[in-house]
């Protein structure tokens, strides 16, 4: 049973009894900037998902060294203008190795999006669960959770991630888990979730506190619903709006965070492609080969910008007056 729309005065197009979500969708449709942003996001997600298909079309591989497209005698510089752009290599090739940059681009998009989506899902799941419990039960549980959140939030995020990643890996190595590219991705996601859940939990707790006093909750209680039923079947569905907003704003921040870590050489491990790592490697070649850096840098900017605009659009759609 879904709740009645919380803003009775703002129903569009004379349609009545629409759910909040449906109303939000209609509002969103009219927001040009948000649609445009969604389009961009869609393109990136498409590229990331179909990365292997591109490999099949272009016969290229993001890990394969191509010795014939770089000048083996002279520093491995790409042969040809703009860093070796050609019909075989749409974005050129990497100096020193000859790896196809377009493939590294789409696979890099995949790396960024996998990490960002996984971290967001983890953040949302953990944060929402803890927020629900803290908000509904209150009392000691709420106090303890509140202090834990405050404590975690005192750590400066980026510094802590840089420091914690190798430490975490070393401790886990003792349990026989070897360092590997996949394992590093898991480590990064874990650390992101460890920090990220706090913001979500706080927000959710706040929402729960206000929802908890509503009549429909009393009604459910009176009707004999168990606590868990109330939490998950009554309150949670009403959080869909805020949760969606949090997700769409968390995603770009995780994309950025992963890029920053890879740029600082403490993110993904070679040979995993990542836009941040590509920016790092391209820095010394900037004067000779600007496209090498411009492509991932501009794409990162566009991706994060689109996600942010999309997130703003979602938030405006759910709550145009900006009250929450």
């Amino acid at each position: 049973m879904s709740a009645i729309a919380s803003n009775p005065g703002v129903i569009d197009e004379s349609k009545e009894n629409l759910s909040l979500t449906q109303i939000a969708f209609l509002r969103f449709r009219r927001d040009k900037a948000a649609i445009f942003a969604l389009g961009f996001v869609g393109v990136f997600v498409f590229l990331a998902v179909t990365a292997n298909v591109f490999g099949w079309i272009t016969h290229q591989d993001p890990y394969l060294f191509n010795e014939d497209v770089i000048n083996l005698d002279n520093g491995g510089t790409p042969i040809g203008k703009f860093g070796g752009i050609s019909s075989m290599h749409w974005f050129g090739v990497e100096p020193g190795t000859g790896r196809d940059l377009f493939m590294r681009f789409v696979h890099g998009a995949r790396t960024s999006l996998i990490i960002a989506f996984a971290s967001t899902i983890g953040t949302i799941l953990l944060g929402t669960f803890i927020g629900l419990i803290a908000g509904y039960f209150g009392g000691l549980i709420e106090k303890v959770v509140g202090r834990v959140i405050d404590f975690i939030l005192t750590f400066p995020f980026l510094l802590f991630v840089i420091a914690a990643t190798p430490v975490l890996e070393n401790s886990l190595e003792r349990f026989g888990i070897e360092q590997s590219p996949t394992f590093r991705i898991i480590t990064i996601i874990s650390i992101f979730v460890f920090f990220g859940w706090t913001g979500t939990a706080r927000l959710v707790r706040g929402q729960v506190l206000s929802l908890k006093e509503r009549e429909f909750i009393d009604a459910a209680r009176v009707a004999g619903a168990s606590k868990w039923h109330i939490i998950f079947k009554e309150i949670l569905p009403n959080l869909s709006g805020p949760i969606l907003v949090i997700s769409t704003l968390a995603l770009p921040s995780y994309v950025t965070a992963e890029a920053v870590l890879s740029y600082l050489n403490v993110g993904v491990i070679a040979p995993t492609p990542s836009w941040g790592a590509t920016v790092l490697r391209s820095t010394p070649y900037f004067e000779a080969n600007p496209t090498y850096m411009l492509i991932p840098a501009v794409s990162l900017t566009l991706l994060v910008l689109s996600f942010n605009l999309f997130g703003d659009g979602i938030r405006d759609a759910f709550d145009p007056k900006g009250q929450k």
Partner: protein
Amino acid sequence: MKNKSTAIFAALALSASALTVVSMSPAANAAGGITLNAKAVGPAPAIAGTKKGGTLNYTGKSDVNHLDPTRCYDTFCMNIGRLLWRTLTAIQTDGNGKQTLVGDLASDVGTASKDSKTWVFKLRSGVKWQDGTDVTCEDLKYGISRTWDIEGSNVLTSGTEYPVNYIENKTAYKGPYTTPTGDLSGVVCGKSGSVETITFKLTQSAGDFNFQTTMPNYAAVKKSKDTGATYDDNVFSNGPYKIESRIKKDKSFFVKNTYWDTKTDPIRLQNVDRIDMLLGQDSVNTNNLYIEDTGRATNGMVNGPLTQNVPLIYDSEYDGLKLRFENRGYYGKGPYVEWLAINVQKVTDLNLRKAIQCALNKESLRATAGGKSTGDYTNSVVPVEFGYPAYTVCTDNPKGDLAKAKTFMSKVKKNTELVFAYSNATTDAENGALSIQSSLAKAGIKVKIKPIDSTDYYTLLETQSKDTPDLMLYAWGFDWPNSSTIFPPLFASDLVGKDTVGENKSRVQDKALDAIMNKALAESNATKQTALWVQADQYVSNTIAAVVPLWQLKTLLWKGSNVGSVYNSISNSFDWATVYLKNPTK
């Protein structure tokens, strides 16, 4: 000796070699194109265009590992350290790059007994410390004796152990800190008329002992000024410069040692007034200064260019320097050879090792290091100037031979995943690792690449632990032009211990190889000795496949336009001993 950036692509610190073709004589004369001058006196040969004055600077990322001569064993510390300490004998380089062995603290090049087991050197008079006191035979003996402390790993670490391996020690002397009242029996100070002499009693014949005494272990150290482990930062000088101040990894300043007398020194000149070293600097920024020749770069010495800047200075078609760098750069063959060491203790299957030799794509690996300017392909660990007969290691095709590799792989019983460790200091190192991984994968050899922090890298290669890698890159240069400074230090089985392996990165423990090497060391006939080293060479590369020889490194150097200096192949860079500023007022 270790290249300053050993085992990593030495495109960062290469230099040219002025060595001509080497003849393999262990006798005291004419070792490898280097002649001897038993009567050399100061001043050092004049270099045209030398002016006096000004401040020379150095900008770099890493500091000198050890300025303490007993602990110094890489080209960087040897080049700069010579400004502060003088050794028994040394190699003089003149303005044309010609090299001569001369006495440095000695006034002659030593006289050997018939069996080359006793050597006597006369010492120069008038050589003074930075406080005006004379450098005496006791100071030299004290300096040499400090190597025994390194052997016992007490206070001092690093450095070579040549003196310990050659000089008699009848009293179980353990160095000046552990046995302060002890005496090193193999070194005797005496007098011949009014001249001080030093006599060495050796445990084995060494026809080229007077070349060994160019090693930093044979520098004088004044006992009252020895501060043990911190002597690194407080070296007491008898050279043309002394330390004014030194903060390790940050800044160092050297000023003139007013007690240094040019008439006593055939190697060094004292041209600039001051030397200013700035460390911990970002390599990309430093490189940019040198590309533009601005700021500190104009009066500066620096390491070689980063790989991405190589195309700016080097013309691959012409295989030489670009015009604008011609008077402030150098390009030529160096004395170092680089190879991929296979840990034979872990990679025990000879077929797997041979497969690695066949599968490795040297061309791709060389491209990641900078291409043609990095080095010339070789099938041996010995430099081409030694003139050993050429042979093939699997194939002469630098791309490798996948078919042969697969044939060997089919005979391999257990194909385990191999670990290749590399220092994560540069992107080139990572690209190199990826190249090795990808070329070996094509033959079915699984390689896992492991980045190691640059400060821990050498320790990892040298110690025996569960993390010891199976494959690693290494480079080596002779200490003086004889295979006696190549094979025994790299492949002798007694180097491999429970905890460390020294320079024997391949962990080779082969009795047949030991026998060949020992025979060669004892052999005084030049031709017979060479034949034995040739055997050892092919044994290491082909019979036991302990290494995959890659290339003989070339040197690509640059410096500021206002700096005048000559190459020195021994230190593998522009020589600090005779450096000057072309316009001291700049």
